[in-house]
């Protein structure tokens, strides 16, 4: 696991040094639009703390931050109006999953039908 780099882009967004389009914020988390959206709605949620990945966050973050962060993910999806039609959340850990920014983050994807688990991919999945 890489050492946390305080100059990663999400750290800079959290410090207000890099711009973002914010959609939700509380004491535990910040949510903002992905600048390269993969789906019509694509938001990234980051915890307010220095954690490289899901594994790091789950092992090292204090319980109140873990709870606050995941509740913020749910609140962000609700704030985006995604609860009724549905959404997908994804977190990538490490190289196999193509984690690109090493500040733990969760993607919220919505706005269209995602590929299903066992059925055929949905419209727009680019099969």
């Amino acid at each position, binding site marked *: *696991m890489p050492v946390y780099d305080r100059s990663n882009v999400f750290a800079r967004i959290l410090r207000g040094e890099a711009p973002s389009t914010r959609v939700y914020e509380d004491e535990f988390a910040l949510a903002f639009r992905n600048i390269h959206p*993969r*789906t019509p709605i694509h938001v990234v949620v980051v915890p307010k703390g220095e954690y490289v990945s*899901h*594994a790091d*966050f*789950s*092992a090292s973050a204090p*319980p*109140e931050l*873990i*709870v606050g962060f*995941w*509740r913020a*993910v*749910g*609140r962000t*999806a*609700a704030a985006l109006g*995604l*609860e*009724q*039609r*549905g*959404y*997908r*959340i*994804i*977190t*990538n*850990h*490490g*190289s*196999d*999953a*193509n*984690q690109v920014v090493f500040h733990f983050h969760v*993607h919220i*994807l*919505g*706005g*269209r*039908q*995602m*590929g*299903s*688990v*066992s*059925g055929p*991919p*949905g419209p*727009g*999945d*680019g099969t």
Partner: protein
Amino acid sequence: MSTTPAYDRNNIFARILRGELPCRKVYEDEFALAFHDIHPLAPVHVLVIPKGEYVSQADFCAKAPPELVVGFWRAAAKVAHDLGLDPEGYRMVANHGPNGGQLVFHFHVHIFGGRAMSHRMGNMPRPDGAHESRKGDRQA
């Protein structure tokens, strides 16, 4: 109007939790149970479910007590670690509602590992590996 269904105690994961249906168990503690998906979409495909009646990620995040939220996510990370996925990496996915493609209405997290995952995060992995990038093949 909410499209979130009421919790159905006869859903397949509830029945697995009660021991009424078999599973290939990977991990269990007081907060969560993890088992192999019977239709794996990647070389490693495990499901992690909380021990509680929650329909979805939204339901779980809003209603589960703090100790269960923490216990569940720590269990999920431990499962990935115990499966040996930490060094190469893994993807966790939770689907909520119709657009997410959620099929079983007991909140669950998929852990995918064992090969490089696609950049197309709107897709679930495919058993034949189509859409998946090869090791070291970084798509634009």
